[in-house]
């Protein structure tokens, strides 16, 4: 009896510990404001790295001096929210990373990036960040403009059609 009871207690104890373990794994306390700010800063650091790469900071990405920003200021007409989609240059449905590499290899005549490397993640992060808030529409053929107003600082950006905004 004793040993039987002992086994029962042990079994109950093991289940309890198991449950406690499971609960403690799942019930992580919410991130603090400081942690969230830190995580967001990590993202913005990567976005900033992407911005630099977009404007030519990695010489391996180009042999003719051209950078992404030459044709895509403010990531305009890069349309990250429309990927994956059919890309006629590639002849397949492709993610944005493949399109980025196509641009690096062809118009920029450079060396393709590792598709899962830090530089590629940064380029993607920059483009997606400028298009944040846009509706995700994979395959959309028509370009959707980015919203640099949210991301940019500096001189006025809203056109009046005639004069200069102040």
């Amino acid at each position: 009896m004793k040993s039987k009871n002992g086994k029962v207690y042990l079994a109950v104890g093991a289940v309890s510990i198991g449950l406690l373990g499971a609960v403690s794994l799942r019930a992580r306390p919410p991130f603090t404001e400081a942690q969230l700010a830190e995580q967001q800063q990590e993202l913005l650091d990567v976005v900033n790295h992407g911005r630099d790469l977009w404007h030519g900071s990695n010489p391996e990405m180009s042999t003719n001096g051209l950078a992404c920003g030459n044709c895509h200021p403010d990531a305009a007409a890069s349309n990250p929210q429309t990927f994956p989609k059919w890309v006629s240059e590639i002849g397949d449905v492709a993610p944005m990373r493949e399109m980025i590499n196509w641009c690096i290899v062809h118009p920029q005549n450079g060396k393709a990036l590792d598709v899962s490397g830090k530089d590629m993640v940064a380029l993607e992060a920059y483009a997606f960040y400028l298009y944040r808030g846009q509706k995700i529409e994979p395959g959309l053929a028509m370009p959707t403009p980015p919203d640099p107003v949210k991301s940019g600082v500096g001189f006025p950006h809203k056109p009046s059609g005639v004069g200069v905004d102040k």
Partner: protein
Amino acid sequence: MSDETDVTRRRFLGLAGNAGLATFAARAIGVNTGLIEVLSAATKNGVQPFSFAIITDSHLFSIDNHKFDKALADAVAQVNALTPAVDFVMYTGDIAQNGREDQLVKGKKILSALKAPLKVIPGEHDWYLDMGKAWNGLFGKETWSYDHKGVHFIGLNSILVRDFWTGAGMTPVERMSTMEMLESPIAGPWGVRDAQLEFLKKDVQKLSASTPVVIFTHSPLWDYYPRWNFQTEDAPQIREILAKFDHVTSLHGHVHQTIYNKFGNMSSAGALSTSWPWPYPPVKLDYPGSQMNQSDPANTKDGMGSQSVSVDAGGATVAYEPFANSLTPFLKDGLKV
């Protein structure tokens, strides 16, 4: 007569070898007709009909045999093949990419193959490495005016910014790099500034209101998309000085795309570059739908080219001369400006 001219013009364009068949057809029905009308038009108000060409924004790198060298040479061949021959060629800025003297020298050499005389104004990519020293040495003054067959032409330097580099301790290369980035907020808005406004006032003082005026600047003389400096800060003052004229035509580079606007007595048209096309900025505007097709990145000639402008007493018609078939039907007939 018109058929003969059409055939001759098409043959010349065929020799230039830069345009697709669809573009030829468009020229035959639209652009050529316009040019023929110009040739047969009677002289009015002392204006003798003529045409000129615009080449712009070649962004030459220092690298030998760069694809942009070839693109500029193609534009030169395209313009040389125009019939009737143009009276002169206007270059509206950004010969160089990084403001280097070797890039400007290379551009001048390629442009020297033009059969017609060349007039030039600077762009920001030509200027901010040495503040125009090399450019001035090669191309002379950046502010000028002259009369041609009854039309008054003006060239201004519209890319002058406030000094952002001295306080920041920037080197000339850093200053240039800042200006090279279209969407950089550091440099702030461009303008022609006080000295050139004074020049303009004096220059047009004695001209009669009926004199047709054509003004060249690198950036548009209206507020298109200031974030990319698709604007000129003191354009309102320029338009005020030119308000007395019956008609003013403003022609500019910088935007690397077809664009048109009209306000008051001024019509404005932007030019295709020879280097790369820029996407239209994220703004909605009410003027006529003059956008070109979205360019195909796999076609290295799509969305680029030169333009011819025919002028008579009634104004001017801008005909885009794309390397590839980039134009929508609206644009293929030319823009009356």
